[in-house]
């Protein structure tokens, strides 16, 4: 039986690039913004009949086809015409000149409690930080996975 040599996660000093705090913050903001994106995808479950007693009602199949086509063209039309996204609308509101309370003042403040950290690979509570990118990990096996897959894979 061949024993596999455990791959050491330690690397030579100077071989790895260490990201500074500003870059780490930028990466984090990028990830958070990606979480906020709308997903305008078709619902594969929408063609299923709804559960419960309404399933026995007759389906209005004749009127559905022209409605669907109308909805699609309308949606694209709106997207092309009204290209202002949320940040533009927010700036246009000029809320700094409006009296409080307003949209900005209603935002919940940061929590006074310290944040909890979770391993970016497996999701369990983590105790260690990747020296290069700042991602958290819980064990050396997760660190290896992290180094191979995600660490510095897309650079800012």
């Amino acid at each position: 039986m061949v024993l596999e040599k455990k791959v050491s996660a330690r690397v030579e000093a100077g071989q790895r690039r260490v990201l500074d705090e500003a870059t780490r913050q930028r990466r984090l903001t990028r990830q958070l913004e990606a979480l906020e994106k709308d997903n305008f995808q078709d619902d594969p479950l929408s063609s299923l009949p709804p559960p419960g007693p309404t399933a026995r009602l007759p389906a209005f199949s004749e009127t559905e086809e022209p409605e669907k086509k109308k909805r699609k063209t309308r949606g694209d039309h709106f997207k092309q015409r009204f290209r202002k996204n949320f940040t533009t609308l927010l700036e246009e509101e000029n809320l700094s000149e409006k009296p409080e309370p307003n949209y900005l003042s209603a935002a919940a403040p940061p929590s006074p409690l310290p944040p909890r950290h979770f391993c970016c690979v497996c999701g369990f509570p983590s105790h260690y930080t990747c020296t290069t990118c700042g991602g958290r990990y819980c064990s050396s096996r997760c660190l290896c996975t992290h180094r191979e897959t995600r660490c510095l894979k897309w650079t800012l």
Partner: protein
Amino acid sequence: MLELYDISIIITEPYFNFTSIQESMNEILFEEYQFQSALRINAGSLSAHHYFHSKPSELCCLVVDSGFSFTHIVPYCRSKKLKEGIRRINVGGKLLTNHLKEIISYRQLHVMDETHVINQVKEDVCYVSQHFYKDMEVAQMKGEENSVMRDYVLPDFSSIKKGFCKPREEMLFSGKYKTGEQILRLTNERFAVPEMLFHPSDIGIQEMGIPEAIVHSIQSLPEDMQAHFYQNIVLTGGNTLFPGFRERLEAELRSLVPADLPVSVLLPANPICYSWEGGKLLAHNPDYDEMVVTRDDYEENGHCICEENFDI
């Protein structure tokens, strides 16, 4: 065919909605659809109306509306919202589903394009844990001792139209499944995803969670009213349907609130439709006709009459 010309409509909007969007709404309702009259109102105001209708002795209530885009915590006193107490947490169902998609795509299977399927996974399998770290320990165990782990069968749209969670009796704890179905094995994701409602700092969002925001909101109000708000907290919105949400919220509030103040959290039978039912009650209210703006009013006066009448 429905004639909109004679119909009155109640339509809800988010709190502090932008003026440009409010004006567009006015145009759509009166110029494009030409409703007889319209009422634009916050969803929470309808929920508060429903609550005060079902409990006429109470004067204050706190509406927690946790929906798709964000969560709002709004105190209401005598059917009027207290604007200085409104708190918005930018965590909603959209964020939870997007986060679940990301972690499943990284750990198991690429599902970034399957928003609706993963949304269904979230609704079927996720729950709010009452003891977070204890559940984390259980989720790390191997084999049958791991009572948290569940297998979810993904739809393939030919034989399996809709995904479902495999019952525990059919789960195989070692080895692979013989059938050709695609399976997601979920352990800590089940309760770590809804945890973001209670601790947005878990993924790096610098905001308070729902319990802390409730306390922050109530503490900004006059002291003599605070006890009344703690006793009348109403949960609305889809995210409150996670199993264990109400109990966890009550426990967290109990630890944050001074011991002499009683805390009572109400989860209605249908949190998603609670505000709609409030709208139904409002439409039958004798004061309704004074609250709406009619088409003629709008044609005469324009946007300013809507701005005066509607308190968004």
